[in-house]
């Protein structure tokens, strides 16, 4: 489904990696590993199309992602370092708006169910400003519960989360993979999904 061939990336004049090739098929989980500054985030951002690769190609269902454009975006869920939530809005508004930007209309009931499941019961209508870091991250991650996109690109999804939340995310990833989804992620914490082998991609 996702094919990366001979990819090279650089940041300014500084080359990060080159000659990177891999394939990701339905139901596969891949962890990108490497020390700080080896280009993990750059790789994920390139996969999302924010950055143009120096060389090489990224293909989705056989088509180059640059040509697919919006069709590719519709099948992609990206969670970056930043939570992409607004301090002024409450959790419910944030979730509904971020889903709307992803092209899906979420009614209030569905949003409340998702927020309760992610562990924000009773916090739905509080401005995100007053929530803790971990709770904010949960608001951002709630999108995973309602996303139908097959390809998930997750950059450090576990930062600021407690043990219970990490377990829940593992469960969520498991469900997604069983549905035939794909996940590519980076993390510095252990993240194992039961019954699924984690493929590892090491950036040198």
């Amino acid at each position, binding site marked *: 489904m996702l094919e990366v061939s001979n990819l090279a990336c650089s940041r300014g004049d500084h080359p990060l990696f080159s000659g990177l090739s891999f394939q990701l098929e339905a139901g596969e989980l891949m962890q990108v590993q490497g020390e700080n500054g080896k280009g993990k985030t750059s790789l994920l951002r390139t996969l999302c*199309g924010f*950055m143009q690769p120096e060389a090489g190609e990224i293909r989705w269902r056989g088509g180059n992602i640059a040509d697919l454009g919006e069709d590719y975006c519709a099948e992609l869920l990206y969670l970056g370092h930043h939570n*992409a939530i607004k301090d002024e809005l409450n959790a419910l508004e944030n979730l509904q708006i971020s889903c709307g*930007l*992803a092209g899906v209309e979420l009614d209030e009931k569905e949003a409340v169910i998702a927020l309760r499941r992610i562990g924000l019961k009773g916090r739905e209508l509080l401005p995100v400003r007053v929530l803790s870091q971990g709770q904010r991250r949960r608001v951002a991650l709630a999108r995973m519960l309602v996303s139908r996109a097959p390809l998930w690109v997750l950059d450090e999804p576990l930062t600021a989360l407690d043990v219970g939340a990490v377990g829940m995310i593992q469960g969520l990833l498991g469900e997604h993979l069983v549905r035939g989804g794909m996940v590519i992620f980076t993390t510095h914490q252990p993240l194992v999904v039961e019954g699924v082998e984690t493929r590892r991609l090491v950036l040198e």
Partner: protein
Amino acid sequence: MKKLSLFALLLLVIRRDLLLAMRRRADVLTTLVFFVMVVSLFPLGVGPEPDMLRKMAPGVVWVAALLASMLSLTRLFAADHADGTLEQMLLAPQSLSVLVLGKMIAHWMVSGLPLVLMSPVLGLQFDMSAQGLGILMIGLLLGTPVLSMLGAVGAALTLGLRGGGVLVSLLVLPLCIPVLIFGAGAVEAVNSGLSAGANLALMGAIAVLALVFTPWVAAQALRISME
């Protein structure tokens, strides 16, 4: 769960930006207060001669509107850039230009429309005629959206740069000169007994042209800024 149409997405972005503006009212008020202050300072500075005030009124109001609309430009994309929302917007499965257009419209409603509504009150300080006030308002109604649209292009180009605030004014103000000339010219034409039609028609043409091109240009600039 339903798929969102293009128009629904446009409305969503407008509603979101207006909601955010409502929660951060201070930002909205600064533009309006700045506009009122600058325009009100002129009669105090140049003296209370009605003839001179009448003559300079359209120019003063227009220049103040131009400067006031520069104030809020840096915030147009900066907050979304800082908290990662902009990345998600780039990944929206709809045209980015439409999202940008939504942000432009919301920006105008928050920073341009109040200026239009306030302008007759300020015009009275300059002893402008009723007809002149009407034309001033129509001119601002056509011109302030252009300021928001051109401003958005500048804001997108300077996104993430240090000192972007000053740079965006330097970039955008020269582009706004036609709007200033035709806007102030329309009122002067009416004052000297001519028709304001030609000036307003040109303003309308500029507004239509900006509507067609600026969302796309700003969207491209955003993609470049995100690299």
